[in-house]
């Protein structure tokens, strides 16, 4: 996966610390260095890319569990609903990888993920963290759209990417922001 990792500068804002850099750590630790799925998928089948997306989804599920510890009310209910959908994405990606003859990568332990997460002091911290993770997920699925070789795989990536776009909108609304930051969530025609 081509997740772009922002280097942590010498002076960073609290938002960057909770969002960008922390999420970059999550991504760096969730799959970029993992071996592609085992088994026998053909090179170029898309299984390795799906494995990277799956590793990211595993990390995001763990991240929402951390966020839920400090969220309350509507934000907690929404985070739980999002986490449920992320778990469904995990299952869908696992199925796609198996269909290609691959062995879906397992997630890491909650403790391993937790070591890479920022300390979330309150709901605001959690929502900023979630927003950055969702942005990175949208970007990852849109990049996969250009790289996956098969129409059915691209369709799945697009559908999951649409879910991530809605999640991103939801965590922005919960912060009092417009659901869509602009007409193009990443890039433009």
């Amino acid at each position, binding site marked *: 996966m081509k997740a772009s990792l922002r280097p942590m500068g010498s002076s960073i804002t609290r938002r960057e610390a909770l969002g960008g850099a922390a999420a970059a750590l999550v991504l760096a630790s969730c799959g970029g260095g993992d071996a592609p799925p085992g088994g026998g998928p053909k090179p170029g089948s898309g299984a390795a890319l799906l494995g990277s997306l799956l590793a990211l989804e595993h990390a995001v599920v763990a991240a929402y569990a951390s966020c839920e510890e400090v969220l309350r009310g509507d934000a907690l209910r929404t985070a739980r609903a999002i986490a449920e959908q992320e778990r469904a994405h995990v299952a869908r990606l696992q199925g796609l990888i198996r269909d290609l003859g691959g062995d879906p990568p397992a997630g890491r332990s909650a403790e391993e993920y937790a070591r890479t997460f920022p300390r979330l002091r309150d709901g605001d911290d959690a929502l900023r963290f979630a927003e950055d993770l969702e942005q990175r997920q949208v970007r990852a*699925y849109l990049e996969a759209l250009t790289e996956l070789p098969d*129409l059915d795989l*691209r369709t799945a990536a*697009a559908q999951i990417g649409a879910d991530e776009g809605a999640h991103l909108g939801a965590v922005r609304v919960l912060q009092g922001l*417009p*659901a869509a930051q602009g007409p193009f969530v990443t890039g433009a025609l």
Partner: protein
Amino acid sequence: MAERSDLELLEDLLALEHRLLSAYEAALRRAVIGPELGGALRDQEREHVRALEQALAGAGRRNPRASVPPPELGAVLRDRDAFARFALDLEDEAVAAYAQTAAAIRNPRLRQPLGSIMACEAAHGVALRNALGTGSLVD
């Protein structure tokens, strides 16, 4: 069924965008959507129309299809909830259409930008659910 050309796929998306744009313009005129939300959604749909027209021009389109406002619009302009539900259905339709097209279009350079509009339409759905004030922000 014969596979559709990139031109035809983009034309279909443009027709959907015109329906969305017409809907938000009419809703703003009739004050059945808040001016801040309605204005933001209208402006973003306008940007999508502009981008699709550019893509169509790049794909060789010469004669734009005429766009017609959706016939069902009159009935839903009576109150805010009715319009929000109508617009939500239209946004959901747009998300599904973009997902299908972004996956199917032959020109790989168009897949990611079409996906970025899809993600924006998905966020519009969240904004409309929030405006309705019922149920979850995510479907």
